[in-house]
């Protein structure tokens, strides 16, 4: 794919970056918060996709990394650590946790893996709630007050762009290919010399890094979290719904899905206070029934994505 074919793509990217950078001077803080949340969810959706889409193991417990990152950052900030150090330690903790749980969890496959990781969230939520002295229990934890919206906004943008670039190059690396091969057929992949256990563990660890980092940024901006707000169903499921709706196993899929869902939330959910989970559930059921490949693999969006030169991985759900 030479760069002339990708010209419109570069143009769009530069335009978007310019708008995002200038947004604090163009819009009210409500819009900033909206973009901040979009970045948080999109980072989660993209990092979920490394395990859920590339590796093919549905990690429903992806938000444990997010919650662990958020709680670690909050506790360290309260103990007077600098933000950079707190975020770094949060990433280390979440990555170490992912490495440890990967050993037993990857002995499960398919739906069992999905449900077990889903159970992991409630396990960590119970532990966090019960360790009252450290975490403030079910009442939640506050960080030192202050308005960090502007720096947090830029930080979140940097994190989400970094995750996008990383996810793009990961799919084109040898490691990424190994993950795809595990998804297609783990036994064959192993017999071709792919160290499947190591790579699965690595994939889980890698996907925990952006999630925990964005968790730290989230709590830095929000200055308050509770077990429910970071381990709840909403934060666990919406990134996954975004990734699945957009299309898993591609970098563009989660981007499409996240923007779509955020827009729907903006226009619909502010008007309907009930049935948010019902809507998520209905979207999930319809996706499962009619297009498990997601939006980017539908006949209307696929040509567009391919024209932008991002379509390499898009054929995956077509073959059977």
């Amino acid at each position, binding site marked *: 794919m030479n760069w002339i074919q990708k010209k419109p793509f570069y143009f769009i990217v530069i335009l978007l970056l310019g708008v995002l950078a200038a947004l604090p001077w163009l819009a009210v803080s409500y819009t900033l918060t909206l973009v901040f949340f979009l970045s948080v969810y999109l980072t989660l959706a993209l990092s979920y996709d490394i395990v859920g889409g590339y590796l093919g193991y549905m990690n429903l417990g992806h938000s444990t990394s997010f919650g662990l990152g958020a709680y670690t950052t909050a506790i360290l900030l309260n103990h007077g650590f600098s933000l950079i150090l707190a975020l770094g330690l949060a990433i280390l903790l979440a990555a170490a946790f992912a490495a440890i749980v990967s050993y037993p969890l990857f002995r499960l496959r398919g739906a069992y893996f999905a449900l077990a990781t889903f159970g992991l969230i409630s396990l960590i939520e119970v532990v966090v709630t019960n360790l009252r002295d450290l975490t403030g229990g079910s009442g939640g934890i506050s960080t030192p007050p202050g308005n960090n919206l502007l720096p947090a906004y830029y930080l979140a943008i940097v994190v989400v762009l970094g995750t996008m670039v990383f996810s793009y190059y990961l799919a084109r690396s040898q490691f990424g290919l190994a993950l795809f091969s595990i998804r297609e057929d783990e036994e064959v992949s192993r017999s071709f010399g792919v160290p499947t256990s190591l790579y699965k563990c690595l994939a889980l660890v890698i996907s925990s890094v952006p999630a925990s980092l964005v968790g730290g940024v989230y709590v830095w901006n929000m200055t308050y979290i509770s077990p429910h707000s970071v381990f709840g169903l909403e934060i666990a499921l919406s990134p996954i719904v975004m990734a699945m709706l957009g299309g898993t196993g591609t970098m563009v899929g989660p981007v499409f899905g996240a923007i779509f869902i955020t827009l729907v939330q903006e226009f619909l959910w502010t008007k309907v206070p009930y049935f948010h989970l019902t809507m998520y559930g209905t979207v999930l059921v*319809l996706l499962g029934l009619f297009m498990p490949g997601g939006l980017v693999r539908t006949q209307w969006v696929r040509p567009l994505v391919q024209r932008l030169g991002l379509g390499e991985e898009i054929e995956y759900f077509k073959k059977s």
Partner: protein
Amino acid sequence: MLPDLIQLLVGGILLGGIYGLAAFGLSITFGVLNVLNLAHGEFLMLGALMGYVLFTALGLNPFISAIAVIPIFIIAGIGFYLLLLKPISEKPPHQLLVASILITLGASLVIEDLTAFFWERPVTGIAYSLPSLDLAGVVVSSTRLLILLFIFFLAFSLQLYLKKTYIGKSIRGITQCLEGAKVVGIPIVLVSALTFGLGVALAASAGVFYVTLFTVTPVMGIPLSVKYMCIVVLGGLGSLVGSVVGGLILGVAESLTAYYFGAEWSPTIAFILLILILIVKPEGLFGTKE
């Protein structure tokens, strides 16, 4: 000390019996359909609410309701299967997996959210009890004892059903080899639908007992599904004995944890057991290595 321990064991075994019954429903569904029903806990919750309604509105004895909900939920389960799971049953394995997780998880969220909306009371329980028995210092609630006997009776008749009847044999046949079952002419769709209905009905029936002993909330479904999965993995896939034993182990472990470490820690024990069994014996206690 000792009476306390025995008391705990009795309580745990009873809880475990309820777990085992519902977990077996999950296990046969997975065996036949190759789909893990993430909405399984929701059906237990719905069964529990139905038991509550039958008890408060009609004064129906829980033992009768536990039987009465079975046909209702078999029909509901067959409907669920035909509407949501049959359309995806012919897909290749990875797509089937993704689609089935999406569908059952989505259905579970819908059920949970709608129930929570229409069921205004957050917590529900019924007061049904018979006089207690005093056996050499150990007080045993005779309700609980009867329920346990009833559950073993259900498990026994289920075992007979699976061993002796045509449908039961087909269920076991499909679990062992889908291709082989097709070759000998077993009606796959019919048996799958019936199995799903049966699995769901077992969960609902367990739910009726659940509401006699504990309180029920509309949001308990997903944590329960996770527990059942832990039991199924613990006991070994597709094994009735395994599910019952796994359920008993979890029930006892939960009541011991609640007693020695405090009730707030008992939700963690299912997961710890899961991790332990995966490290020590990944195929489960009664499972066979592939």
